[in-house]
């Protein structure tokens, strides 16, 4: 199988992609949304035209708003991000942003998150990420408990975990770049997208490994001697089309979700698009070649 034979080339490509994603992550950083930090987000829509940013900013300054950010959104909207509102600010915000009779702006969305909720969500996000990784690792080790030759079942799990790391790093790095490009912020939906990528990508990896398992068993039953790299390559070849096709149908629906779906899930769809592409790539070009590389390494040491 071409991919298994030339695995070093693909290892290099994978390493490069991962490196780029990591650099992007460290250079641009992730911007947590108010869901994690606490604060206020207000979206105002103006029916005919929106006032100049200065006008809105002046009104806000006069009302004692500090450290806020005002950004243009859609064609005639503003999005205001600020710290938690005082009672007086909350009472006057609709009036402040309306722009008076000339603009008649109306608040279409207002979200306020207190600091304790932000902290709770942040902790929950981290814990659920770790929990998903652990559960998946346990599950794979369990699913492959009967395969121990020529490499033991926990190595399947470990390799699956490495490919998962790759599948997380790539969309996270991409999102950091997106944050730099147009201020995309990570929120609970982003975490959801990442967890979904994990579930889906492991899906793909399991199918390939499952085929390796089956072919090993058949070889064993028929007393056929076959090089492990050969078996792994054959298994990959058999599941190749399937991997790409299942990802394709998901990618098709995600593209549709991105282009014509609700505005609030657009970044979500984009994260999933990148993550699932990365997941499909890694289950084909990383997981099985790694399995072969490990087998070679273990074999040499014996």
């Amino acid at each position, binding site marked *: 199988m071409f991919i298994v034979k030339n695995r070093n080339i693909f290892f290099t490509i994978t390493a490069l992609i991962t490196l780029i994603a990591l650099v992007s992550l460290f250079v641009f950083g992730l911007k947590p949304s108010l*869901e994690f930090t606490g604060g206020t987000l207000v*979206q105002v*829509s103006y029916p005919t035209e929106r006032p100049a940013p200065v006008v809105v900013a002046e009104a806000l300054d006069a009302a004692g708003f500090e450290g806020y950010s005002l950004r243009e959104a859609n064609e005639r909207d503003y999005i205001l991000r600020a710290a938690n509102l005082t009672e007086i600010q*909350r*009472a006057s915000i*609709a009036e402040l942003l309306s722009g008076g009779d000339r603009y008649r702006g109306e*608040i*279409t*969305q*207002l*979200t*306020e*998150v*207190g600091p*304790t*909720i932000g*902290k*709770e*969500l942040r*902790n*929950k996000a981290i*814990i*659920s990420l770790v929990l*998903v990784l652990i*559960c*998946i690792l346990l*599950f794979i080790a369990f*699913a492959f408990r009967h395969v121990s030759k020529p490499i033991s079942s926990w190595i399947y799990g470990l390799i699956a975990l490495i490919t998962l790391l790759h599948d997380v790093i790539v969309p996270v790095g991409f999102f950091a770049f997106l944050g730099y490009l147009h201020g995309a912020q990570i929120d*609970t939906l982003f975490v*959801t997208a990442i*967890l*979904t990528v994990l*579930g*889906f990508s492991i*899906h*793909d990896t*399991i*199918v390939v490994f499952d*085929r390796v398992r*089956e072919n090993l068993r058949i070889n064993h039953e028929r007393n056929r001697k076959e090089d492990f790299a050969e078996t792994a390559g054959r298994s990959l070849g*058999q*599941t190749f089309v*399937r991997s790409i*096709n*299942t990802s*394709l*149908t*998901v*990618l*098709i*629906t*995600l593209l*549709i*979700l991105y282009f*014509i*779906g*609700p505005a*609030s*899930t657009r970044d*979500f769809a984009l994260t999933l698009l990148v993550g699932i592409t990365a997941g499909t790539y890694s289950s084909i070009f990383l997981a099985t070649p790694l399995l072969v590389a490990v087998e070679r390494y273990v074999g040499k040491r014996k």
Partner: protein
Amino acid sequence: MLKRRIAALVVLLLGAAVGWYVYSSQMSGSRPFKLGLDLSGGTQLVYRADLSAIVGADVAESMSSLRDTIERRVNLFGVSEPIVQTQHAGTLAGQPEERLIVELPGVTDTQRAIELIGETPVLEFRLLKGDSPNVEISSSTVNTLFEPAAITGKDLKSAQLQFNQSIGGVPNEPVVVLNFNSEGARIFADLTKNNVNRYFGIFLDGVPISIPVIREAIPDGTAVISGGFLADEAKELARNLNFGALPVPIELISTQTVSATLGDEAVQRGIMAGLWGVIAVAVFMIAWYRLPGFLATLALALYCLVVLALFQLIPVTLTAAGIAAFILSIGMAVDANILIFERTREELAGGKTAAEAIKEGFHRAWPSIRDSNISSMITAVILFWFGTSLIKGFALVFGLGVLVSMLTAITVSRTFLLALGIDAKGGFSRFLFGSGTHT
């Protein structure tokens, strides 16, 4: 063979029935889809309850009484289908916190919503620690000067305006008479019996309204607030207390408001994306897998109908994230079919007849389908636990989708495939069962 065809017919009829059910219950409004606040428009308010004055075991009871009170209050203002629920936030929030979540569909004026709930007064009773009331009672000294009394606002049954005829005070002074419920009366009787000659403070929203001395045990469960009210003030206080005095103070910690227009747009876009999603996946499946692809499309249509019916029946509160999960699940639902068909194709290439290949395909693909769906379920369960209401919506739809798609993709498409009874080894059936890479 006849049996198989009848089975396939039954499945088709069932599908049609489910479709009709979904359509008619949406149109007649008997069981319409339940939309979350981000789709229907409305306001969500999250409060933290200050339970520092409540002793251990009473926490749950205080919270449920708090919920009832706010619910009464919200209903009074004619909000349709409000949701008021309590939530215990564990150690993840840094410290345990009791919260109250109020969802008001249709209310898009955040300020009005806050006022609506904020007008509910907090009624508290406290005993003075020392002998005589200090003149300087401010909000900061309340807790050091007073200790909580065993009785709380939740024990209140009703309040009414009366005019004090009697001794001491101003003649005809308006007073508010509190009537406790039977349990409250018992607690109050004990309290007054054990604390004769102590000062008993009645606080409203943290402000002492009146601090009478307990002269004697009061067994009949009534207390009088005489705070030098004007008649109108007393009347309003009695009314507010009747509509519900809060057993504990609450503090607003989070709000979310989405306008109805923004929600409508999200729903429209969601429906369009769902429709196009199904169409695109169907085109792909038929183009690549031909006859089985067409059958998988039937299974997919059935999957959509069953899931939609479940949304109505359970009912699942749909959010934008939930719709995204549903659209995502359309792409993933055919996953099992692709696994089976790829396998079938392999078996065909190995020289088996179509019928054998189909059987073998289903049989061999099963372990993969099972394993990969388990991993998706793991994600769904953890997400459900992780979730804010938004994410819970996603997780529930995602999990449901995985389970239902396993059922439809396997049983339904098998029923159809077997019902066709193609057993020929001829070129045409091979073409029908072939796929894009082989002809």
